[in-house]
């Protein structure tokens, strides 16, 4: 009996302590790059990129592109709400690059003197209403989200997507009672994808990434909120050269073309 009890006790403690968000992916790295221009030391090593969850697919693709061009480099990502990531960086999480879905959370990093140089706005995004494919609830705009019986989820007002959604709803003069305030915008999208929610306010890029399962309902220009995304190399980055190369790539024509493929707009 005692052994079982001790076991149970140990597990209760373990169970209570997990629940935070850690880095999304990781892989071993650091081989010497054999290629690159002869006059320049080739890029090598790995960086950890902290990015708002709406950047998930585009940033992974950008990392893959750079990896092909610079063998021996590797990119590790930590995606989450920009506010969670900002908190993590301020508390000493080892980030090389930070990309935020809003300027407020980047400002927190700037205020904490944790950026290497002034952040650059590298892309912008717009809001859309995500609904199930075929739009079975026939939602035509923000006003429909107030319909009784409709299950609407939003991002929490503490994360950029939630803040933008509230701004848009306010502009449209609509009050929505959300069923849930999800921790980041991808969680909102998931609830719609899974069919648990009838509608959610997400970014245009999220709807695009969800493919055939989800349809997007446009928000008219006068209610639209444009999200401007800043990016910066984090101070004391372990690999500032590769971090800068990643940021430069996203700002380059190639990088902008790649971001546009995912539905992002020019800054």
């Amino acid at each position: 009996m005692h052994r079982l009890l001790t076991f149970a006790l140990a597990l209760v403690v373990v169970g209570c302590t997990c629940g935070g968000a850690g880095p999304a992916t990781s892989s071993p790295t650091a081989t010497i790059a054999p290629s690159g221009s002869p006059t320049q030391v080739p890029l090598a090593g790995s960086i950890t990129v902290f990015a708002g969850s709406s950047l998930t697919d585009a940033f992974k693709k950008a990392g893959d592109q750079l990896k092909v061009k610079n063998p021996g480099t590797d990119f590790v990502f930590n995606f989450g709400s920009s506010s969670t990531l900002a908190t993590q960086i301020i508390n000493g999480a080892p980030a090389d690059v930070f990309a935020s879905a809003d300027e407020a959370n980047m400002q927190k990093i700037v205020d904490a003197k944790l950026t290497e140089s002034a952040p650059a706005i590298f892309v912008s995004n717009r809001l859309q209403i995500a609904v199930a494919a075929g739009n079975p609830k026939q939602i035509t705009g923000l006003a429909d989200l107030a319909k009784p019986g409709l299950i609407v989820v939003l991002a929490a007002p503490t994360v950029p997507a939630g803040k933008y959604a509230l701004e848009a709803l306010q502009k449209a003069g609509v009050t929505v009672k959300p069923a849930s305030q999800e921790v980041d915008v991808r969680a909102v999208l998931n609830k719609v994808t899974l069919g648990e929610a009838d509608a959610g306010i997400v970014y245009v890029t999220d709807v695009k990434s969800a493919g055939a399962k989800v349809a997007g309902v446009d928000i008219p220009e006068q209610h639209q909120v444009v999200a401007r995304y800043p990016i910066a190399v984090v101070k004391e980055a372990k690999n500032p050269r590769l971090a800068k190369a990643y940021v430069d790539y996203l700002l380059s024509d190639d990088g902008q073309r790649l971001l546009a493929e995912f539905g992002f707009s020019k800054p």
Partner: protein
Amino acid sequence: MRAARPPFAIAALAAIGVLFFALPLAGLIYRVSWQTALSDLFTAEALLALRLSLFVSIAATALGLLLGVPLAWIYARVAFPGRNVVRALTTLPMVLPPVVGGVALLVAFGRRGLVGEWLDAGFGLRIPFTTAATVMAATFVSMPFLVLTVEAGIRSIDHRYEEAARTLGASQWRIFRQVTLPLVAPSLFAGAVLCWARALGEFGATITFAGNLPGVTQTLPLAVYIAMETRPEVAIALSLVLLLVSLGVLVALRDRYLRLD
């Protein structure tokens, strides 16, 4: 028995072990802004979360007792084929990442889920995003602690008491109520408290299955997570409360019911 003087290496490693657990608590105490701690704890959001967490953890414990005690009795007293498999199944959440539990609950009881679709079509019952979902998530992860503790308690009872009752003509049901249950009262209490503590700390399954809405599904751990982004002082104050409650539970249990010596 005289206490042995531990070898230096063992003492040193054990001390590091203690520090590993003590330092986070010290960090919380250090970072709490004591002047505002009380007002932080009495913000509207914190109070809502506190009230909901109390309700949810108590409801989960009640459900755990209602379903878990019979289960524990059967595991301890009835040998049936596949008992080990069934027991493993019902204790799985102890080792399962809670988020996985939440996903599993969602695909079972969600609107498009195995049972959920039928509940929605037949009765218009939708579980996700409700307090009921929060209670289910908490019960899912916490009941196994109660079941295992009570099962161990029932196994350790001296059979002769139950035998005596049987020879005196008591029915099985009466033996269960009047002999078995009183004898396992300490395990029952310990199991319920463990179950309650685990339910109180539940995060992963809740946020996945029940979502996050203040007053409805936003329990204390969820409130801590959300507050950490904007009002870290509230998050730290709430964390300290959760930590002290859990610590209190474990200290009390160890003294009274978990004597290992």
